[in-house]
């Protein structure tokens, strides 16, 4: 969930991601959804889709962030998504998983934001 560079940086990155997404028309519904099966950084509505977003902050740049969403991480995100849908009794919803990669500079300030829509499927 958090980038390895410290909780503060992680929260900062999440805030930047949320702002970025809102500007694109995402309607943020929930932040830091946690349950026993996993955790999700952001839950948003985009068009007709319910989107579960993972935010990754890294100093070294975008490609590194994407690889950090490995199989184990995906399982936890999908598990949390199923929990979210079940608790709210959501049926027949189109779901998507997005990844927002936030690139940080030397001081840990965000310089670039990169969004990958439909980054992975629920096959885990």
């Amino acid at each position: 969930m958090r980038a390895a560079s410290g909780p503060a940086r992680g929260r900062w990155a999440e805030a930047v991601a949320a702002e970025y997404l809102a500007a694109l028309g995402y309607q943020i519904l929930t932040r830091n959804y946690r349950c026993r099966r996993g955790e999700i950084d952001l839950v948003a509505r985009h068009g007709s889709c319910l989107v579960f977003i993972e935010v990754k902050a890294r100093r070294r740049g975008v490609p590194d962030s994407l690889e950090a969403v490995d199989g184990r991480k995906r399982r936890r995100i999908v598990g949390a998504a199923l929990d979210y849908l079940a608790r709210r009794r959501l049926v027949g919803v189109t779901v998507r998983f997005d990844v927002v990669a936030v690139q940080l500079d030397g001081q840990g300030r965000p310089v670039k934001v990169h969004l990958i829509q439909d980054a992975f499927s629920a096959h885990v």
Partner: protein
Amino acid sequence: MKKGEDTSHSPQGGGRCLFLFARVRSGTVYGVDGHLVQVEVDISPGLPLFEIVGLPDAAVRESRDRVRTAIRNSGLPFPTGRIVVNLAPADLPKAGPACDLAIALGILAASGQVPAEKVAPLCAVGELSLDGHVRGVPGVLSIALAAEATGAPLVVPAASAGEARLVPGLSIVAVGSLREAVAWLRGAAPPPPLPEPPAPPPPADDEGEDLADVRGQAMAKRALEVAAAGGHNLLMTGPPGVGKTMLARRLAGLLPPLDRREYLDVCRVYSIAGLLAADPVRRGRRPFRAPHHSATRAGLLGGARGTPGEVSLADHGVLFLDEVNEFSRSVLEALRQPLEDGVVVLARLPRPLRFPARFTLVAAANPCPCGYYGDTRRECRCSPHAVAAYQRRLSGPMADRLDLHVELTPPTWGELTGGAPSPTTPQVRARVLEARARQARRFRGEAVRTNARMNEAMVRRFCRLDGAAEAVLGAAVERFHLSARAVARTLKVARTLADLAGRERIGPEHVQEALAFRPAPPPASASVPRHIHSLMAGGDAR
């Protein structure tokens, strides 16, 4: 999002569709037969998944990645949501990437990007490259034949269009890329132009291999003529270098050209083996296959994965087993079924795999391990036991099916430098074609086409002997203790000899000549090397 509400929306983000479903057809190949596959695509809301069900093999499962990437790289959005692709019927294994194109079109139709009603009646075949190009796949001809019955318009890769056009009366659209197919389906472009039709196969020419190239060996050449005329299997024995391989190669030139049906049969097998594109022109000629004696059972008969073996690649042609004693025993044993039935059936699978294997067998053998047993000029270095054991390997079902045996001896100096003029391939082929025409009339409406394939009832019907001929045969049965099988073989060969002479009745001279081709030397020629029979009777090795 209210609780309990069904919020199924179109994944395109606009408009409401209750369900997203599309159908299209594709094909798969099992053995040599094509089967049509019904591709159903369902897109429903839920966690993003993309699944293919219907006994897909590994290549089909990998379709997911190819299809998704090809769609995206063709500039089209890949729908979100739960995508399930079903390949029906569910109990028929689907093999290979041939369904890629159909799956992609089905997904595009289900998500409303191409009109579903235009896609549904099509039969689409082709592999997708990651950049959206449509690649050729093996077996398109088999699938085209299956589609012919349904009248479905066929969408094929441009690379396979030539193959599909071999089937008359099919409506064919050849596409080079997914983009091209989509443009056509949306009505934005006419169907892509078909590539030039393949040139018709040239008449079987000899490719520089004429019977007259071989010096001497009149008996062997006669045997080739008989083999070509009646479809008889032939064994040649003799020392190395005497010309067995040269002669075997010239058999294909004596055979009649493939007719329309045979041509399609051969193209089908070669397409499945992936060899058709590389060698299309030669398909007018009869296939000639010469596997090395280290060939495995699977290589010779075909694999469970669906690759045809040498016997199937030799369908309607010639299978030449050089140094037949060197083949492994189990491999020779395995040839029993194709020799007997003209087909290879792999029955261990849920659905038996059948491959055609209607070939003429030519086998070449050395008489012994060193090769010079019976050679008049060089001495054989093998013990009698070794010779007997070597010759015994060629026993059982194969020996039963070899109608013609010829022993070759090295040509004399006179024969090498001149001698009597040899018959040429065109001359012999003319006689062979006449004999074949007689057989076509004889066997009209029957299941066989050549004398060699006659069953017992047919032998009784078509191989009646007149008095003199019967006497000759009777004497031979007495003298040489011929078995019933040997008698049947002799009668079939005599029938072919009579056909070659243009005679409907089998005369004594035909029986006499037929007996000369059986696996024991006629009593008059003591100088001819001995065969296993005289050896087993305790004769001297030399």
